C-alpha cells in the first residue's frame, strides 16, 4: 500500500509532494537533499506530484502524502470541513493570481459590473476575485462568474468568450508574455500564501521529522534566493515552461518570510470572511478558531534560524 507509514518515533518512509507552483519543492527534489539527509536515519523518501491544491489535499486526506503544498485558503477551506492538517511552513508568498482582461474598455474592477469573468471555483484566483469585488462594494451577484479550469479560462479570455479572467501562474505569465492580455487588478496581499501542510497525525507522531523537513525546505529556499537564475532555469525545465515564463513566475514569488504567523492568519481570515459570505464554507464556521488551529508556527520557529 502507498499509505505513508505512521509508527512510533521514526517513520519508515516520508512522502513529500512537489508541485510546479512550489518552486522550492522542485529544488529540494532536484538536488535530492531530503533523500540524503533522511537516509542517515534510515528513513525512505518518496515524492508525489500535486497538480493543484485540491489534489494535494486529497493526498493528505488519504494519507498518501505526509507533506502537501497548497494555497493557504485551500488549506483553510479543507480545515474548516474537518481535514486533520496543519500549515507548518510558508514556501513562498506568491503573487500567483490577478485579474486579467483583454478589453481595453475595462480599466478598473468597477468596470467589471455585469461582465463575464472566468475563474475556477474554490481556488485562490476565485477568492482573489471575490475580494477584489468586495473592495469595490460589489459581490459575485453583480458579475457573471463562469466556472472554467485555469487554462480554459485563459483560452476563453483570449478568444473573447469572457471579459476578464482571474488568472493563475504560469498561465497568467504566459498570457502576459505571449498575447495581448493585460493586468486589470493586482494585489499581492490578496494572495493567501503558499503553505506547506503536514498531516496532524504525522506531526504528533514525528515532530522531529517535521522540523527536519522544514529545515530541508529552508535549505532549498536559501539556494533559490542565492541562485535566482538557476532556479528559473530549473523551474522552466521541470515544469516544461519557457525560460521567460519561469522567470516571470519566480519574480512574483517572495521567499523572504518562511515562518507562518500573523500576516498569514490575517490574509486567510479575510479570505475566510469572503468565503463565508459566498457560502463556500458554512455560515457558522468560527473562522478565527479554524485559522488558529491551521497555522502552526511552532515547528518553523524552531527549524528556521
Amino acid at each position: 500500500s502507498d499509505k505513508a507509514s505512521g509508527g512510533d518515533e521514526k517513520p519508515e518512509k516520508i512522502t513529500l509532494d512537489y508541485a510546479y507552483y512550489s518552486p522550492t519543492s522542485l529544488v529540494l527534489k532536484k538536488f535530492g537533499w531530503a533523500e540524503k539527509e533522511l537516509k542517515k536515519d534510515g528513513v525512505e523518501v518518496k515524492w508525489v506530484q500535486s497538480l493543484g491544491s485540491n489534489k494535494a489535499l486529497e493526498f493528505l486526506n488519504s494519507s498518501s502524502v505526509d507533506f502537501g503544498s497548497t494555497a493557504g485558503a485551500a488549506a483553510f477551506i479543507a480545515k474548516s470541513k474537518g481535514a486533520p492538517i496543519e500549515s507548518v511552513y510558508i514556501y513562498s508568498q506568491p503573487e500567483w493570481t490577478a485579474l486579467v482582461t483583454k478589453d481595453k474598455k475595462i480599466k478598473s474592477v468597477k468596470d467589471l459590473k455585469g461582465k463575464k469573468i472566468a475563474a475556477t471555483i474554490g481556488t485562490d484566483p476565485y477568492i482573489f476575485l471575490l475580494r477584489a469585488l468586495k473592495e469595490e462594494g460589489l459581490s459575485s451577484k453583480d458579475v457573471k462568474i463562469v466556472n472554467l479550469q485555469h487554462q480554459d479560462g485563459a483560452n476563453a479570455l483570449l478568444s473573447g468568450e469572457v471579459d476578464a479572467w482571474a488568472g493563475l501562474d504560469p498561465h497568467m505569465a504566459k498570457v502576459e508574455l505571449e498575447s495581448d492580455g493585460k493586468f486589470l487588478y493586482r494585489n499581492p496581499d490578496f494572495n493567501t500564501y503558499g503553505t506547506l501542510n503536514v498531516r496532524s497525525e504525522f506531526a504528533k507522531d514525528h515532530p522531529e521529522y517535521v522540523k527536519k523537513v522544514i529545515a530541508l525546505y529552508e535549505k532549498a529556499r536559501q539556494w533559490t534566493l542565492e541562485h535566482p537564475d538557476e532556479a528559473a532555469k530549473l523551474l522552466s525545465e521541470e515544469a516544461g515552461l519557457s525560460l521567460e515564463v519561469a522567470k516571470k513566475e519566480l519574480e512574483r514569488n517572495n521567499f523572504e518570510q518562511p515562518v507562518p504567523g500573523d500576516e498569514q492568519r490575517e490574509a486567510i481570515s479575510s479570505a475566510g470572511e469572503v468565503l463565508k459570505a459566498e457560502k463556500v464554507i458554512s455560515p457558522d464556521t468560527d473562522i478565527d478558531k479554524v485559522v488558529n488551529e491551521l497555522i502552526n508556527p511552532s515547528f518553523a520557529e524552531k527549524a528556521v534560524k
Partner: protein
Amino acid sequence: MASKTELWQSRASEKKKELLRPLLKERLQGSWLGLIIPMILLISWEIASVRGVFEAHLLPAPTVVLAKISEMAADGSLWSHIWITLYRVFIGFVIGTASAVVIGSFVGYWKLAENLLDSLVQAFRSIPSLAWVPLFILWMGIGEPSKIVLIAVGVFFPVYLNIVAGIQGVDRKLIEVGKIYQFSSLQIVRRIILPSALPSFITGIRSGLGVGWMFVVAAELMGASEGLGYLLVEGQNTYAPDVVIASILLFALLGKGSDSVLKLVETKALHYQDTLANQG
C-alpha cells in the same frame, strides 16, 4: 435409483393459472430484489460512519448526504441542477444517437464508407472527455452548444460501434430476401438491416447513454454555473464531500432511471426475439 412412480411428472391444470402472469409478478419481485444490495451497502456505510470508521470529512454518512440533498431540494437549487443536466444529457443523447445511426449505417453497409471513415472514428473514440474540453471551448465557446455536443460525442461512439457491429452481423439470408424484391440499398438498410441490428443498437444506446452521463462532468467544466457535473466539481474544489457524494448519488439515480426507460423500450421492442426470456 428412482422408484417407478417417481418417474411420472404430473401437473394439474390449476397450476397453470399461477403461471398466467408470471412476467408481471416476476418484474415486481425483481425490482424489490434489486434494492437489497444497495440497502445493505447504505446501511453498513451508515453504521461505519456512525462508528467512526470513515472520517466525516472524507466520507460523510448517508444521512448527512441525504440531509444535504434535501437541503438543496428545499432551496430549489437541486431541481435546477438536475433539470439543466437532464436537459443537456437528453439533447446530447438525441444528437449523438442520431448521428451514430446515420454514420453507422453508412459505415456498416458500404464498404467504401467503412474504409474512409472507420479508422478515423476508432481513433477519435479513445480521446478522453477532458481532452476535448479546451478544443470545444475554442471551437464553440462556453455556451450550451459546446456542452451538448461534448455529451453527444460521448454518446456517439458506443452507439456507432454497436450499430456497425449489428449491421455487419446481419444474417445474409435476410438481406437476400430484400434483394429478391429488388429493394434499393436504402430500403434494405431501413427494412432489413436496421431492424435486424436492433438488439445491438439498443445495447449501444444504453451503453452510449451511460458514457453520456460520464461526459457531463467534462461538459460542465466548460463554463457551467449549474448542473450535476458542476456540483461535483464545485464540491471537489471547495472540499465539500457531502456535495460530492450527493452529486455522485444523483448521477447514479438519474443514470439508473434513464437506463430503466431504455430497458423498457428494449423489452418492448425485442419481444419478437426467440430467447429464453420471451418464451410463451
